[in-house]
């Protein structure tokens, strides 16, 4: 528990219930972070996830947490929750029995997909199976054309008869996706009304409601995924709410969205697909938050755990948002092998590289690492649980980067000899000794992560060299220095409590909601009243949802953007739209903004080519909470850097072509203002920071380590 920090904008209401709690349900552990918004005091909690009923772990964990913090349930003002429930239900295909209603002739849009193989050379590849089998996909006699006009009216009797049949067949959930409903949702709304009347027990999602965007495959896929998980999410949230009230927690429960915003449980129940990446989003938000506190607005968030590493670019203090995500992939790290869902998602790249990633020699005699992972069981060879394959953690141990006696604060003793044997076997096949092999593993995995981060930056038109690396996750601080070196980043920032930092993201997110409408047209021919009407509609919706959550109307922030492109192109560029659109100047102004952004991304424009709008977006948000806190135990702050030194040990340094004995610092003894030079090791319970030569380390006022390269 620690002190540093203050609440910048205290509200009277909060004084009664100052506690905010973040809860992250992961595959193995459910993590908790409690912050007192008045004092900045924090408490960490951890309990095993209960997959049969995840709400149980939430409840027992909360009880333990409040006890540990010596606080009363009545003091809890707000709980923010993220969950992998949606992702898991999609991977395990454990959602509701779902049917699809679609336009005559289009029930196979979700199976035909893009007609594309995501791997050019694999004759044995598999495509992801649709969530709804063909025999539960039904066609309706109706048709709307691209301009929104009706070619064939809807047959209400047909829909009613079908609705009765669906109930008889035991269907629980129905996705409705009719052609061109992004342009004219009337038929879908009629279908929704009929279902409501004839078969009120069915849970229904309309595509024009979930994701009113062009492209029937992606829209249907998203709508199906949404309704498929709705019953599970509804049941789950209900149990969590009941659990909270049983505990006597009066506070509001908010749910983390993939986009990094928060929503009410009501919204989460209607659009659960928007929660799909809520856990990873929190990590990126945490990075953005700590970045803001340290005065840095551009960061590369680098979160490396046991099986994966995640990277996310943060600009102007905000992570970038992507409009599409894939779920239920055939191959976890193979782009294109999953079902597309169009939901605003924090744009992060996930790489099959973590502490448990296995190293091997490929057919060409090269050293490859991952994406296969030894996981937690048997785990790396050095865990001594029967693992024999060499992993990244084994290499890190052999290189001296990890202390076998102080892994997880000494909870798990690492077996150096087992690691050495596993790596030596691999080395024999490469003709390299065990240390060269261990360094090879460490280096190759760093290169992979740096490559992925670089391409990720470039796809967004950004230069990765301009970004400080913000490292967290169990393995992040061990690898961050070398990854940053490869990327030529100026510095690495490691927060206190790096191993559990991502839960902080839950507590710093603003209440926010995203909307999108498709309205296609050339800017010089567009009906600006239509565009304005769409914005007004989206903004009203956002105001109303935020109003229900208790946000005063004048505090709501509205961001409008348009997705524009040159006529004939396929990729859109997102451009901010001014608050007021003057008909006379709107086209010119948006064209100018588009061309400026296009030039930034691609270095040139195509003057004279007409520009068209594809979709219009609005984000409505409440102000972000202004919290200052650091995670972790109160440091036994040392008087001088020398006192913070808890020992020394040899670590491998490629610059020296061998081992060098370097100081080991106790993370908890380092105080603000202290500084030292690399090479060095800094240890805390959940992670170890490795600093190479040619860098200085400084502890800032929030106890972050700031590692600067001296180039």
């Amino acid at each position: 528990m620690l002190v540093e920090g203050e609440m910048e904008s205290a509200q009277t209401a909060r004084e009664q219930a100052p506690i905010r709690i973040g809860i992250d349900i992961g595959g193995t552990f459910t993590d908790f972070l409690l912050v007192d918004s008045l004092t900045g005091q924090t408490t960490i909690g951890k309990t095993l996830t209960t997959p049969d009923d995840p709400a149980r772990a939430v409840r027992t964990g909360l009880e333990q947490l409040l006890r540990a913090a010596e606080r009363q349930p009545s003091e809890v003002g707000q709980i923010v929750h993220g969950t992998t429930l949606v992702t898991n239900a999609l991977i395990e295909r454990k959602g509701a029995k779902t049917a699809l209603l679609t336009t005559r002739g289009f029930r196979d849009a979700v199976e035909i997909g893009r007609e594309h193989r995501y791997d050019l050379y694999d004759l044995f590849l598999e495509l992801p199976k649709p969530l709804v089998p063909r025999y539960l996909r039904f066609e309706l006699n109706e048709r709307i054309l691209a301009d929104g006009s009706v070619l064939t009216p809807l047959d209400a009797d047909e829909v009613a008869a079908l609705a009765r049949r669906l109930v008889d067949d035991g269907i629980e959930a129905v996705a409705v996706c009719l052609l061109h409903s992004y342009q004219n949702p009337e038929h879908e709304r009629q279908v929704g009304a009929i279902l409501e009347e004839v078969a009120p027990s069915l849970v229904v999602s309309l595509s024009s409601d979930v994701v009113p965007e062009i492209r029937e495959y992606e829209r249907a896929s998203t709508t199906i995924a949404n309704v498929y998980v709705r019953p599970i999410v509804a049941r789950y949230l209900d149990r969590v709410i009941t659990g909270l009230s049983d505990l006597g927690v009066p506070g509001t429960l908010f749910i983390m969205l993939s986009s990094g915003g928060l929503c009410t449980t009501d919204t989460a129940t209607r659009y659960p697909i928007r929660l799909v990446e809520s856990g990873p989003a929190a990590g990126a938000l945490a990075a953005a938050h700590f970045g803001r506190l340290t005065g840095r607005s551009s960061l590369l968030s680098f979160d490396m755990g046991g099986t994966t590493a995640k990277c996310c670019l943060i600009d102007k203090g905000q992570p970038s948002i992507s409009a599409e995500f894939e779920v239920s992939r055939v191959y976890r790290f193979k782009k294109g092998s999953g079902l597309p869902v169009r939901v605003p998602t924090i744009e992060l790249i996930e790489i099959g590289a973590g502490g448990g990633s296995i190293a091997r020699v490929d057919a060409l005699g090269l050293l490859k690492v991952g994406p296969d992972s030894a996981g937690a069981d048997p785990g790396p060879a050095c865990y001594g649980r029967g693992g024999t394959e060499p992993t990244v953690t084994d290499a890190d141990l052999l290189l001296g980067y990890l202390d076998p006696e102080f892994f997880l604060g000494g909870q798990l003793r690492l077996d150096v000899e087992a690691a050495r044997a596993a790596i030596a076997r691999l080395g024999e096949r490469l003709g390299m000794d065990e240390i060269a092999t261990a360094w090879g593993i460490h280096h190759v995995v760093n290169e992979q992560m740096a490559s992925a981060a670089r391409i990720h930056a470039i796809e967004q038109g950004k230069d990765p060299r301009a970004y400080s690396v913000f490292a967290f996750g169990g393995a992040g601080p061990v690898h961050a220095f070398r990854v940053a070196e490869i990327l030529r980043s100026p510095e690495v920032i490691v927060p206190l409590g790096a191993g559990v930092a991502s839960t902080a993201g839950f507590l710093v997110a603003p209440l926010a909601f995203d909307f999108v409408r498709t309205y296609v047209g050339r800017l010089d021919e567009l009906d600006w009243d239509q565009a304005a009407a769409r914005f007004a509609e989206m903004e009203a919706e956002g105001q109303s949802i935020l109003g229900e959550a208790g946000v005063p109307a004048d505090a709501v922030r509205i961001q409008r953007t348009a997705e524009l492109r040159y006529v004939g192109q396929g990729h859109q560029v997102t451009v901010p739209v001014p608050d007021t659109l003057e008909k006379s100047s709107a086209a010119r102004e948006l064209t100018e903004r588009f061309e400026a952004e296009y030039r930034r991304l691609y270095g040139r424009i195509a003057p004279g080519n007409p520009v068209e709008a594809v979709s219009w977006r609005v984000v409505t948000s409440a102000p972000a909470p202004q919290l200052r806190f650091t995670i972790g135990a109160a440091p036994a702050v040392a008087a001088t850097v020398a006192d913070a030194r808890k020992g020394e040990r040899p670590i491998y340094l490629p610059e020296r072509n061998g081992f060098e004995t370097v100081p080991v610092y106790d993370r908890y003894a380092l105080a603000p203002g202290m500084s030292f030079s690399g090479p060095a090791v800094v240890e805390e319970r959940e992670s170890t920071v490795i600093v190479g030569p040619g860098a200085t380390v400084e502890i800032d006022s929030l106890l972050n380590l700031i590692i600067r390269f001296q180039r």
Partner: protein
Amino acid sequence: MTAETQTRLDPVRLEVMWNRLISVVNEQATALMRTSFTSIVREAGDLSAGVFDAQGNMIAQAVTGTPGHINSMATCIHHFLAVYPPEELRPGDVLITNDPQKTSGHLHDFTVITPVFRGDTLVGYFGNTCHVLDIGGIGLSTDARSVYEEGLYIPITKLYDRGEPNRELLKILAANVRAPEPVLGDIHAQAAGNDVGAARLLEFMTEFGLETLDDLSAEIIGRSERAMRAAIAALPDGVYENEVYSDGYEEPIRLHVTLTKRDDELHVDWAGSSPESKRGINVVLNYTHAYTTYALKCALAPEVPNNEGSFRPVTVTAPPRSILNALPPAPVSARHIIGHFLPGAIFGALAKVIPDRVMAEGAANIWNLQFTGYDKSDRPFTYVWFSCGGTGARPTKDGLHATAFPSGIAGVPAEVIEQLSPVVVHAREIRADSGGPGRFRGGCGQTLKLAVRTRRPFTFSALFDRLHHPAAGYAGGGQGAAAEITLSTGERIERKGARELPPDTVITLHLPGGGGFYDPLTRDPALVLEDVRNGIVSVERARDSYGVILTADGLAVDEAATRAERAARAERAATPA
């Protein structure tokens, strides 16, 4: 190789540098796709991008694109260097051509090559090939009688000379194509993509202290070549033949392949194939080579990186003036129709030795569907997209419905088609009973019902095949359904090419299915039941082809009746007629 380079390129350093090089070409391809004006390039991924060493050997290619472009780009660069020898190239030079013979086989593809200089030393090249929207002439069609009718031909020439654009060339280009802005826009995007690659390559060389790419290239190509040779060596020595047929234009086209495998080399000869066609379905040798090496890599060594080294152990020949080695002035525009049949022909030959590693015949060529005319406001329009039939079954898995193979392209959503053109897609559905029966079923084709909102007659131009030559199954698997095209006027379309149709015609296209693998009587009855429930296989087909009898409600397999039916069939098969 010196001892020094041996140590400098240990398996770790090589892995790191190779990985870096691949990220450089991916960056090049990303820049190109995002700035392209042609929906075929970005939606369908019809492009390729790669990096070459100073000798013109392809070292790495982007993880995108389609084999006809990638592999022909690898060979085309030597033609460029024959015209502009390296010693004559200067910084700022950019080369271009759409020569079908020397690149990817038709005038619609532009290849742009940019030499990369480190100081004054030429260290390598970036290249890419892209399909442009239009190249004048008769358009993308089978109908031309010579390459001269197919559009503008740009021989290997300079697009930029020491940084100065070749304005005369651009003027001529702009004057000869129907859509000058996007075509010139794409060509500039091609040059810009190479520039992105070049800048990153130079940074990479500086970081790793490389003066040249020679050692790295030798190592990458050498290792790839050895891996490819090892994969070939694992096949028994021998001569393996196969013959397949395409509908052709006026008469069926025979494709005869002879694979001669000895030690660690393979020679592929297409002698015995049909002579050149009078119409634009001819294939140049470069394109024949591309799809031949692609098929071999898929079957023998999918894990080996695709570069100069993986091509070296394979030689490809076809008799001059045959359909697979067409020479000027033979028309070549729709060369992919025949080109896409080549992997199937090769797999059929390999099925005799490695049936467990090939795919049965599939729909083969992608279908180009082009509509031209006037919309209801009398504005002219032209729109083209690709659609795909089913792939062949695999020895362990069913085929894929409506999925491109061997092409690497993707389809276009109906809503996008309708947004960009007056075409109305009335149906796009999986075509029942079109997948060839087998223990593993062939992928089904699709059925498209198309109309145009217009008051005037419109032109429909389609490139298709397998109306008369369905995809064969392997190892006892049945053939996929043949294609069929019918019109609401009652006519059937039999011949490729353009035709004018009355305004309210509805065109129904039944795309072909893939062949099955192994005897359908050995298919798990539960899988047959699932296919029937899903309407992919009819009750009749379940009985007739699979010997599976369902219960009266169609919800379960009648186990006893199925056993009896299958036993009776096995007995009949064993008794000579």
